[in-house]
């Protein structure tokens, strides 16, 4: 049997007395559509930071395709297909939409350090970037600086930059946060059209989105995995209802 796409074993991280990751064992299969949910401050984003190498774990291991990557640099992890997007949009704000995506594709092509040949001559990179921009419905804004776009549109650029890296494992950190409900349809379409062998972990507060997209759900509470299961099981779980979805209050 092929190894898991992504796995964490006994992942721990604390800042002083604050424990953001407490012995997290997590398994993401190839082709998974997995959601990570939990109340604010549960450590969801910290988990992403740990897995992608932006944060160093206090202890524990991270395996990508069965290879221990715990000590790899962020760049090395990205090169092996481990890609994230950001909950709070992290783009090159004064650069155009097209250039934001092109920068990512240049890195993937390994030409990001090229000193002499202008970006404009790397036609293949630009064309691929534009195809992605178009796919996310941003073609008309391709040359606009990102900071002139509405926030909801910026969220789409955020996803385009991630997809430009041809991820094997994609970690979407609240892709729909701040997106007007009219536009979250685009995000659902994009996620549904991802390659079937790509492993997706989506962190989201929008429960409609989660239950629509995810085949499996993990609930994180105070840096600890509370429960993992199918969407139906999670929706029915009394513990989850209590800590996360809220208790039914008699009115």
């Amino acid at each position, binding site marked *: 049997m092929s190894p898991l796409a992504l796995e964490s074993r006994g992942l721990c991280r604390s800042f002083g007395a604050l424990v953001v990751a407490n012995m997290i064992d997590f398994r993401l299969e190839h082709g998974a559509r997995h959601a990570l949910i939990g109340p604010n401050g549960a450590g969801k984003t910290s988990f992403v930071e740990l897995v*992608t190498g*932006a944060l160093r774990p206090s202890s524990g291991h991270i395996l990508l395709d069965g290879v221990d990557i715990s000590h790899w*640099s*962020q*760049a*090395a*992890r*990205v*090169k092996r297909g481990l*890609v*994230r997007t*950001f909950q709070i949009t*992290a*783009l*090159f*704000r*004064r*650069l*155009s939409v*097209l*250039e934001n995506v*092109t*920068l*990512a594709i*240049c*890195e*993937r092509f390994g*030409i*990001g*350090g*090229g*000193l*002499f*040949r*202008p*970006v*404009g*001559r*790397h*036609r293949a990179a*630009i*064309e691929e970037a*534009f195809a992605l*921009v178009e796919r996310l419905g941003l*073609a*008309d*804004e*391709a*040359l*606009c600086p990102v900071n002139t776009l509405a926030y909801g549109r910026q969220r789409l650029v955020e996803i385009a*930059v991630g997809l*430009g*890296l041809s991820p094997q494992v994609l970690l979407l950190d609240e892709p729909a946060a701040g997106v007007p409900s009219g536009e979250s349809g685009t995000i659902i379409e994009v996620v549904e059209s991802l390659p079937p062998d790509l492993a997706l972990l989506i962190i989201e507060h929008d429960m409609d989105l989660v239950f629509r997209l995810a085949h499996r759900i993990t609930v994180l509470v105070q840096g600890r995995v509370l429960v993992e299961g199918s969407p139906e099981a999670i929706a029915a779980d009394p513990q989850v209802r209590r800590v996360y979805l809220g208790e039914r209050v008699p009115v």
Partner: protein
Amino acid sequence: MPGPDAVGIFARRHRHHPLEAAPWLVAVAAYFAFPSYLPLGAQILATILFALSADLVLGYAGIVTLGQAAFFGAGAYTTGLLAAHGWGEPITGLLAGAAAAALIGLLSGIVILRTTGLTLLMLTLVVASLLYEVINKASWLTGGDDGLQGMEVWPIFGRFRFDLFGQTAYFYCLIVLFLCWLVARRMVHSPFGRSLVGIRENVRRMHAIGAPVGGRRLVIYTISAALAGISGALIAQTTQFVALSFLSLDRSGTVLIMLIIGGVGRLYGAFIGVPLYMVAQDRFSEIDPVYWYFWIGLLMVLLVVFARGGVLGLIEELRSRDGARR
């Protein structure tokens, strides 16, 4: 206009704009218009290169530095020492100056670029101060406080002597500046140059798209040091003198001021800010020899209040306002 041709527009962005010829035409015109100011002109051209080197680190990579004079001085002293000890060939002298400055940039960069922001700013200052003291203490070699004397710079290609009127110096500086500008321009449009802008705009995202951020910063720091070294070497060769003040904090600060006047991160800020500052300095110090610094200060205050992006930023703003009205 966007839509399908966005790719084409984006792909043509690096092409030369007719306006880019303007600084060079002005420089050639100035040669004929102000024949008695050529020595000042040569200084201005060499200083533009210095400001350009600062723009690459500050304006593009977002590395705030107060130690750029270290590289300027390293280049000047290397070239100067060679010329004072029997090797006055200008071109190789220039290259030696660039190499020495680049080496210092690389070695100090490996250590200090691990930090960012204010810490980095202080460390750039430290590197410049250390080098300043080393050269000060080695007075048996460098002349210390008295400056380096006895440089003998040979004619360029064995033919063009550095004359008293500064004609050779002017064209020499102009050609070297032009070549360095070509390299810098090419570089800022390359994927490497754009990735520096990415680092400036959002370093977290650069990490997240798999860019080796540390390496990129070190490369541009080293290249910038080399250009600053060439600039220092040019001034050493054309004035036939090197002094400790070449390495001073004052010089590192002034070059930033000149760059800010022109506009940071645009490649052309240096071409506007440096002449403006140096001509103003020349004029003010003649009109008001005691308080001329006051006028420079006033100019700075006005600029910070009314034109944060410098002259180029102001032009951009006016143009976009004009565009909005239409």
